[in-house]
């Protein structure tokens, strides 16, 4: 019965009710004992009043317990100790009784109220801990940030009747609230949110609406970076700091986990789409190249003979062969552009000397550069660079081919290089008229040609491919007309940190080669 009295009370009832209870309790004891006052000894009466103080302390807390103590002593003196209905004391030892009674009732009241408060605290903590545990379980299974937001909001409402708002950074690092809960969500100035994020430390602000509520701004600290902010509106801020910290740790873990799941899924999706894309493109390439190969080879076999063809037929066969080769080049360019433009390209980057790729490009072009002496300057001294050799070979081929196409016969093509502190610049320059000055930027755009009306064949795709390739390597490309005449395309590749190279010693004289 006692325990049901002890636990049935509401610790948060308003003060007037709690003090009223103290007055009522003491009054009731006095009223009940009054009819039996002649039969009861004074000590028994004291005991009954002490019982009333204990009950008041349990049910109403410290302040009412003090009031009950004082009231009990007063009522006891006034109603039960002769002379009755007077505070006068006829018998000196009664003063001692009053003092002891007051002291005992105060001490008992305070101890009881303290124990009660502790029990209540423990129960509340247990409830919060259980709530946190349930929340942790929910968050561990959450499939999206909306679900995280919902669980947290429910937890806070259940525990403290506190509205909250979860803000996560968008792709451009702006904080955006997850989910919409109308006007209930606490609002905090964006600057303060950012401040809490930057400091990685919770902020407690007094709300300016006069409600006495605190806005707790909790940054979600992830392992690698900040993951957002949780704003909680709470009536007070005493003693719940550690709890809020635990809460924000739980939420950050959940948000971070969801983030990494998302990253992993995106990477997987990207890999799948890249695989699909490249298999479509290789199938296309195979299907287009097969008839072109046949066309080219058949025309070539007509030319080679035997029997030798009449001159005119031989010319025709040669023309068919050359046109097939041209179409093949265009298809190659278009497919490469499609590969570079339709999404991320997986590069086969390796550390290697640029000189090697230049050599391979020059050999590949062979006859196309006929009549243009090529000079290669300063390439041997360059550091190793990290790039995809097939793609950079493509860049050199396109640039050299352009240089040969747009410069007068016999004009030299110069390939030179300079190593800067963080980049290496490579230049291909040629004689001729250079680029039209108003098109230095535009020549790198798709289907844009420097000299639209010339008889030189081309689609305006070569430089666009170059730019796409250089950009996926983290470099830049530009065209300009050097003061000494002609045109020049220069591109930069980042130097990075080359792998260490241990030089090998030459063997001593007379030993081996």
């Amino acid at each position, binding site marked *: 019965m006692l325990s049901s009295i002890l636990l049935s009370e509401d610790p948060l009832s308003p003060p007037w009710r709690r003090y009223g209870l103290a007055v009522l309790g003491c009054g009731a004891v006095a009223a009940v004992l009054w009819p039996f006052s002649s039969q009861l000894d004074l000590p028994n009466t004291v005991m009954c009043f002490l019982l009333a103080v204990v009950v008041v302390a349990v049910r109403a807390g410290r302040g009412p317990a003090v009031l009950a103590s004082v009231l009990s002593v007063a009522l006891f003196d006034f109603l039960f100790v002769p002379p009755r209905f007077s505070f006068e004391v006829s018998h000196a030892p009664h003063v001692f009784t009053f003092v002891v009674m007051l002291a005992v009732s105060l001490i008992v009241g305070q101890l009881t109220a303290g124990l009660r408060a502790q029990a209540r605290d423990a129960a509340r903590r247990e409830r919060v801990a259980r709530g946190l545990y349930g929340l942790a379980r929910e968050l561990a299974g959450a499939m999206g940030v909306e679900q995280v937001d919902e669980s947290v909001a429910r937890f806070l409402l259940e525990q403290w009747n506190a509205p909250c708002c979860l803000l996560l950074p968008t792709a451009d690092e702006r904080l955006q609230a997850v989910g919409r809960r109308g006007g209930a969500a606490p609002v905090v100035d964006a600057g303060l949110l950012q401040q809490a994020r930057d400091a990685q430390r919770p902020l407690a602000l007094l709300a300016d609406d006069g409600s006495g509520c605190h806005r707790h701004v909790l940054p979600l600290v992830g392992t690698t970076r900040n993951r957002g902010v949780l704003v909680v509106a709470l009536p007070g801020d005493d003693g719940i700091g550690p709890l809020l910290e635990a809460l924000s740790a739980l939420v950050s873990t959940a948000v971070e986990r969801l983030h990494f799941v998302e990253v992993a899924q995106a990477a997987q999706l990207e890999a799948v789409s890249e695989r699909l894309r490249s298999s479509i493109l290789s199938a296309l390439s195979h299907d287009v190249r097969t008839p*072109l190969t046949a066309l080219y080879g058949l025309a070539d076999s007509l030319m080679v003979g035997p029997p030798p063809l009449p001159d005119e037929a031989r010319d025709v066969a040669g023309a068919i062969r050359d046109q097939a080769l041209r179409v093949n080049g265009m298809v190659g360019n278009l497919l490469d552009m499609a590969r570079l433009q339709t999404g991320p390209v997986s590069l086969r980057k390796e550390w290697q000397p640029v000189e090697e*790729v230049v*050599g391979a490009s020059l050999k590949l072009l062979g006859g196309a550069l006929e009549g243009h002496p090529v000079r290669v300057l300063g390439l041997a001294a360059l550091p190793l660079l990290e790039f995809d050799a097939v793609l950079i070979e493509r860049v050199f081929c396109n640039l050299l081919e352009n240089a040969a196409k747009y410069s007068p016969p016999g004009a030299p093509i110069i390939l030179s290089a300079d190593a800067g502190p963080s980049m290496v610049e490579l230049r291909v320059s040629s004689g001729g008229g250079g680029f039209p000055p108003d098109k230095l930027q535009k020549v790198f755009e798709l289907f844009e040609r420097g000299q639209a009306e010339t008889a030189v064949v081309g689609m305006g795709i070569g430089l666009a491919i170059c730019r796409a390739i250089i950009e996926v390597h983290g470099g830049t490309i530009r065209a300009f007309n050097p003061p000494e005449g002609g045109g020049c395309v220069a591109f930069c590749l980042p130097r990075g940190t080359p792998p260490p190279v241990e030089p090998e010693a030459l063997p001593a004289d007379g030993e081996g080669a």
Partner: protein
Amino acid sequence: MKGATILLIEDERQIRRFVRSALEKEGLRVSEAETRREGLVEAGRCQPELVILDLGLPDGDGAGFVDDFRAWSAAPVLVLSARSTDYDKIGVLDAGADDYLTKPFSIGELLARVRALLRRGRARPGAEAARVSFGDVEVDFSLRQVLRRGEAVRLTPLEYRLLAVLVANAGKVMTHRQLLHEVWGQATGDNSHYLRIYVGHLRHKLEDDPAQPRHFLTETGVGYRFQL
């Protein structure tokens, strides 16, 4: 070279047609197959001295064919690949194919490769010349001596070993992996830049113009080819 049997595995009839006519004009015997499976059967029947293998066969990858074929024959394999960025060919070359041609190819290129490979095939087994000369360089493997315009060129042990491997496989494409394995004894990706640096050293020591080499050729993205 005349009379040698060549097996052509290619699914496109028109390509088979002109390749066959070009080879027959050279006095070679040609047998044909359209699929990988048919190719293996035909190879067992006609014992070819050279196989020309298309990489875009409908029934599977070329590396598988080369694996099966290499189990019983050392005859050279020339691969036809659809494009320069076709990385499948690296797998086929690693598996033991000897050379590749990128489509479209001219008859001149085709015949040059075929001749070189047949010569290599005939020269086997293990009869590498003790003395080789290319350009103005002479290498005498018995003396471990390299001369350029009559003067001794000093090579480090690794450079010499790389030169020996490349010369021994003259005319054949060697993938990065194969060279790393033969020269460094391992095919680790971490050291692949060493291979490129050492090929560069050889070019600077033995080529007239290292930026436009004539003997130590780069097969971009694949490996190197030494050409006499």
